[in-house]
């Protein structure tokens, strides 16, 4: 029984999260003493995959799969599940992967476990560690489904290089019919998305107004980071909803999270706590964020942020 990884790509390039899911898949396959396969939709150059231990690349090249669709992609994966003996399907935690994972488990009548952060503690029983209560706790979850579909939290496992010499197999898979049609995709160009980012620069009500976000964007640009914000900032329309992070917004699990003018309310912290390193910049030394952060600067963001940008630029 093998392991299958869904290798997400965009514009003919793999997402970084694909390499992480593959690294995890390889480690799991080693534990299970089995092979690791990957499924690729319309991504022609698969060379980079061999750095992460893959044994077989299952390529689907068919324009019907150009746009992501949870239904179409799931049914294609079901076709693979019929021909290959697969016990575990691994996905990332991107919006599309979570969309796919839940639907795939529906049509295969199996379990879907999301927010997984480690390799299984044991295989029999199959016990996974995942975050729950929005990062306020972990659960050791026993999975009793023949087919196990799991999503890995980004940046929880990291990349592990492992050279391999994969077999490449082109699959001829028909796309299922669906009356669900994509009309338009509005892309935010040029910016890093929160889900893919290694660094997130986030700002709150302490910034006083939307006109003051230039320095936040400049800091993010200097660091190659995504921008995010606290809930009231998006509720007031200072920033788009897509930037709202926290318990009721997007989860963040970046390597570095920089919070500027954010007090550190419990609901905010819940959503960002699985980030590895947290930095807070706040003029109130009593702000609760200082209790959750690794590094902190007490002071006025309007002075600190521009100075920090200068120093970061000078360093490069």
């Amino acid at each position, binding site marked *: 029984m093998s392991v299958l990884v869904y290798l997400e790509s965009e514009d003919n390039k793999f997402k970084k999260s694909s390499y992480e899911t593959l690294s995890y898949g390889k480690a799991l396959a080693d534990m299970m003493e089995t092979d690791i396969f990957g499924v690729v939709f319309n991504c022609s150059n698969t060379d980079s995959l061999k750095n992460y231990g893959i044994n077989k690349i299952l390529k689907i090249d068919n324009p019907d799969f150009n746009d992501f669709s949870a239904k179409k992609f799931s049914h294609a994966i079901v076709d693979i599940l019929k021909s290959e003996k697969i016990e575990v399907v691994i996905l990332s935690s991107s919006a599309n992967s979570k969309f796919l994972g839940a639907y795939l488990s529906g049509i295969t009548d199996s379990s879907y476990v999301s927010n997984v952060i480690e390799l299984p503690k044991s295989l029999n029983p199959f016990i996974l560690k995942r975050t729950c209560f929005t990062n306020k706790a972990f659960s050791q*979850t026993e999975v009793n489904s023949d087919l196990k579909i799991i999503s890995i939290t980004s940046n929880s496992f990291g990349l592990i290089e492992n050279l391999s010499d994969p077999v490449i197999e082109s699959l001829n898979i028909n796309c299922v019919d669906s009356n669900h049609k994509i009309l338009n995709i*509005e892309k935010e160009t040029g910016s890093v998305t929160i889900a893919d980012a290694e660094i997130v620069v986030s700002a709150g009500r302490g910034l006083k107004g939307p006109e003051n976000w230039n320095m936040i964007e400049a800091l993010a640009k200097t660091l190659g980071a995504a921008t995010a914000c606290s809930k009231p900032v998006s509720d007031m329309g200072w920033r788009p909803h897509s930037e709202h992070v926290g318990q009721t917004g997007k989860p963040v699990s970046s390597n570095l999270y920089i919070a500027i003018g954010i007090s550190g309310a419990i609901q905010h912290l819940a959503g960002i706590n699985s980030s590895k390193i947290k930095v807070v910049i706040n003029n109130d030394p009593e702000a609760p964020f200082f209790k959750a952060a690794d590094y*902190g600067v007490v002071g006025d963001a309007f002075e600190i942020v521009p100075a920090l940008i200068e120093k970061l630029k000078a360093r490069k």
Partner: protein
Amino acid sequence: MNILVCISSVPDTTSKINFVDNDSKFDINGVQFIINPNDEFGLTKAVWMKQSNNASVTVLTVGEASVETTLRKCLAIGADKAIRIDCLPKDGYSVAKEIESHCNDVSYDIIICGRESIDYNGGIVPGLLAGFLDYNFVTNCVDLNVDGKKAVFSREMSGGTEISECELPLVVGSQKGLVEEKDLIIPNMRGIMMARQKPLDVITAKGISSLTEDKKFIKPEPKSEVKLVKANELDQLIDLLENEAKVI
């Protein structure tokens, strides 16, 4: 048009998270339960559709009698009818199966579930339900317009928004954006009084077994003390991030 909104009753966002029975169960002692925020955005949208689409709105929870307070609140917000499937929810799979079984008895044009719950965060019920029922499915939904048998909707995806259309029936994973925070309905006295008259049916569960089980909960290690850097010594912060934390 019939709309079903699946409601999860979750600990209030400020709740202390503790566990009992050898860390195998969530400690509900002193915890206030609320409508899962992602579900509440969906419920509000459904209530709006009573006007715009002449819809009838049913709310449903899989849970024990204690969740009826949450269902009554949904009725006060504007749902027409409530259903409780009587059992202790075990995992997303068994919950989705119970809901599927109800949807095989009563058909709905639109089924709305929160994108994920803020307690177990599985993000699993809407997708499973759509898969079980073979309905169209959208999650992270931030806009929905229904005209006759056709729905046009948007979903937030990484790096953008996707707009699409499909025929009903449709399962929707709701979140903020479907309606705004300021649009959430706070029940007034009249709503609360009316809610008492509205039907709340209890259905016997099918008793479907779960596929996953939380064996043990673990709380995060206490955080070590923050390292403070002076505002005029930012070089030190950069040095720490570069050489100690190794994140830039």
